[in-house]
């Protein structure tokens, strides 16, 4: 019985995942494809776990729905007034009631255990190799690389009429965030105005940027994504252009990253000085969420 369940489950996961990967985005890009029915391909260790976990959840939930649907179909056929003119009067069955309380509890424990494991995994920030600071603004992102020359730049969406051929609508930005693969990247997020949310589905990163707070998380991009662009979108309603502040990460090899930072220090040096908040962040070490010392700077 258990075996059958497992086999069926694994088969279903297999089907779904292979179905999903058939929808991978265009070459060189990590984003969703037309008619995609499954999660975006996982490009970080957290994402790999969460995609797999979702597949398990989906199997369990599908089975529950099918079970209920099956019972209902049987009831509709067997116990309609034509087939069964005389209703029974049963209103109690203690054993049955115990079963339908205990079995769901067991299923839920089965869900909770891996769920919490993944939760703690996603949260425990490993020794960071570098830090990226992200600041949300209405309606663009500001990025700062404190460990790689402390340069700062803004990333804005390119409007539709300025797109070049092949650039995706609503996702293309002027300055991509360049990040190295196979590197533990610490992410520090905050905002200069309202709440935003820096979300990358294929990295399983999704964290609010909130004025007055710095949220911390991490990611690590799998090396096979070197050279590819990973897309995301602001995921917290932040005003009129909420739909128009995409995130684009260009994953590169470590060497390319080194080279890029050198060049970026030149390119972005002339830029306006970094927002005051980002200076405050630099002083903070290994804390998950902290109060910004001088929150008025957030304005």
């Amino acid at each position, binding site marked *: 019985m258990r075996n059958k369940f497992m086999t069926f489950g694994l088969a279903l996961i297999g089907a779904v995942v292979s179905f999903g990967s058939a929808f991978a985005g265009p070459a060189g890009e990590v984003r*969703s494809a*037309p008619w*995609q*029915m*499954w*999660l975006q391909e996982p490009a970080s260790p957290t*994402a790999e776990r*969460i995609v797999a976990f979702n597949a398990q959840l*989906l199997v369990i*939930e599908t089975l529950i*729905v099918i079970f*209920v649907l099956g019972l*209902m179909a049987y*009831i509709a056929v067997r*116990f*309609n*007034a034509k087939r*069964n003119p005389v209703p*029974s009067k*049963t*209103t*109690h069955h203690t054993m049955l*009631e115990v079963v*339908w309380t205990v079995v769901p509890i067991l299923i839920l424990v089965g869900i*909770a255990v891996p*769920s*919490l494991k*993944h*939760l703690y995994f996603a*949260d425990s920030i490993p020794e960071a190799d570098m830090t990226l600071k992200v600041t949300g603004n209405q309606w663009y992102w500001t990025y700062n690389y404190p460990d790689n020359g402390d340069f700062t730049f803004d990333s804005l969406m390119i409007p*539709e009429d300025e797109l070049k051929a092949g650039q*995706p*609508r*609503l996702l293309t930005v002027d300055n991509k965030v360049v990040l190295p693969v196979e590197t533990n990247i610490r992410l520090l997020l905050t905002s200069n*105005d*309202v*709440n935003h*949310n820096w979300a990358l589905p294929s990295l*399983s990163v*999704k*964290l*609010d940027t*909130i*004025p*007055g*707070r710095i*949220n911390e998380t991490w990611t690590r991009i799998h090396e096979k994504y070197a050279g590819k662009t990973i897309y995301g979108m602001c995921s*917290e*309603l932040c*005003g*009129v*252009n*909420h*739909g*128009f502040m995409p995130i684009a990460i260009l994953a590169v090899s470590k060497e390319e990253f080194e080279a890029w930072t050198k060049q970026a220090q030149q390119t972005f040096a002339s830029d306006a000085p970094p927002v005051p908040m980002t200076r405050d962040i630099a002083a903070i070490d290994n804390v998950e*969420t902290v109060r910004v010392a001088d*929150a*008025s700077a*957030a*304005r």
Partner: protein
Amino acid sequence: MANAADAHAHDDHGDHYPGFFSRWFCSTNHKDIGTVYMFVSMFAALVGGGMSWFMRLELAEPGLQYLTGGAPDMQFYNVLLTAHGFLMVFFVVMPALIGGFGNWFVPLMIGAPDMAFPRMNNISLWLLIAGLALLLISAFVGSGVGTGWTVYPPLSSSIYHPGAAVDFGILSLHLAGASSILGAINFIVTIFNMRAPGMTLHKMPLFVWSILVTAFLLLLALPVLAGALTMLLTDRNFGTAFFDPAAGGDPVLWQHLFWFFGHPEVYIIILPAFGLISQIVSTFSKKPVFGYLGMAYAMVAIGVVGFVVWAHHMYTVGLDVDTRAYFTAATLVIAVPTGVKIFSWLATMWGGSIEFKTPMLYAFGFIFLFVMGGVTGVTLANSSADLVFHDTYFVVAHFHYVMAIAAIFAMFAGWYYWIGKMSGKQYNETLGKIQFWMFFVGVNILFFPQHFAGLAGMPRRIPDYPDAYAGWNYVSSVGALITAVGTMLFFWILYRTYAAGTKAEQNPWGEGATTLEWHVPSPAPFHTFEDQPDMSGKQPAE
């Protein structure tokens, strides 16, 4: 029991209707007040539904088709979205299920002559209407409320939403909230204090149980929202700093307070639906409810646990990991009592002799589609998995399955079930069934594809989306069109019922319908139970 009530119904002298103004504006009659609630709900459904259809129209294709005016139009989209959420939750579902059916049938089902505080009942109604008016105004002053129904500061603060619109929204909810608190007090006292002799709590119909639990949730949750709204109002207008980080305040505080109310709120919506479905399932299976006590206490359990899971809406604000672990576990727990309800309904139907009249079709559809929406809630409950789902269309699909499908199905089920009792006219069965199938097909085409869009990463609350999401959005919009037609058909049926419905019998549903409302004539006379029936020694009213 039948005899006592029937005999009395014949020499009922209670049908002295007051004049028009007195009857409809100054009413102290639970049935008239309930009727007005129903029509308020229908009006709000047309406005809120219209807004959603316009959103679906815009979202049908990628690119901007109708909102082509730049930033003001983007704001307009957000205003539509916000008003749609508010209208549907506060002014469609709650007025129909609690104000409408609750008012009509709680007194009838417990054999009480009216509500405990009839005048207070009326002020609940009119404060709700005042709230509705303020909400509609809020969409038209200045640039409207473009914050989403969650009204998170700082976006809703005076810097990012100057102008009076948000203040209108806040006061609208204040009034609607006061309305609900007063209504809740009224229901609790009515149920505790006015049951017919011999009708113990453990004999009350489950619909009454559901309203009782709901009323407690309202009583405990809404004042917290009122407090939060007051803070937002003073932040915006009088210089306090509750949610202003620049002065030591905390935007996340709002989210805690909002969801401390907001999560119980979603059970406020679904519990009366549960109660109603129990009545209908039992009636049309011609069987008493299976596991009556389990059913009642499952609702109590859902209500209690519902107060300690609020932060599952806040998994991405940066709560510490142990907190998120707790909220994951607590949220999962709710699936257990909910499962008890689902399986008890199935067991009630098991062995029954089921007649699939329109109300039963809706109840049947409810059970299945609520499970669909419930299990996606279980996915979202996992803080780890919510990292990919939060603020995507997967969440939109989840909550429309449990609200726009399940709760609305319950409303329709209740309407078809009780319209004979309320109006004295019976609907047309064939049209009713057609309407069910249109809605059933429509809402599934509408909301099922949103799961896929959400899995693929489409964020919510955006007026335009990357081209990859075009396919599922188009399908979804086709579904919206079908529900629009289904809604129109409902209003046609409503019109036909009042204009040309056949005379409803006292009990159109036969032996399965045992609760007290079926022991008074149709339409229920102006005053019922001048003489309370004696229920001692009787079975639970199921």
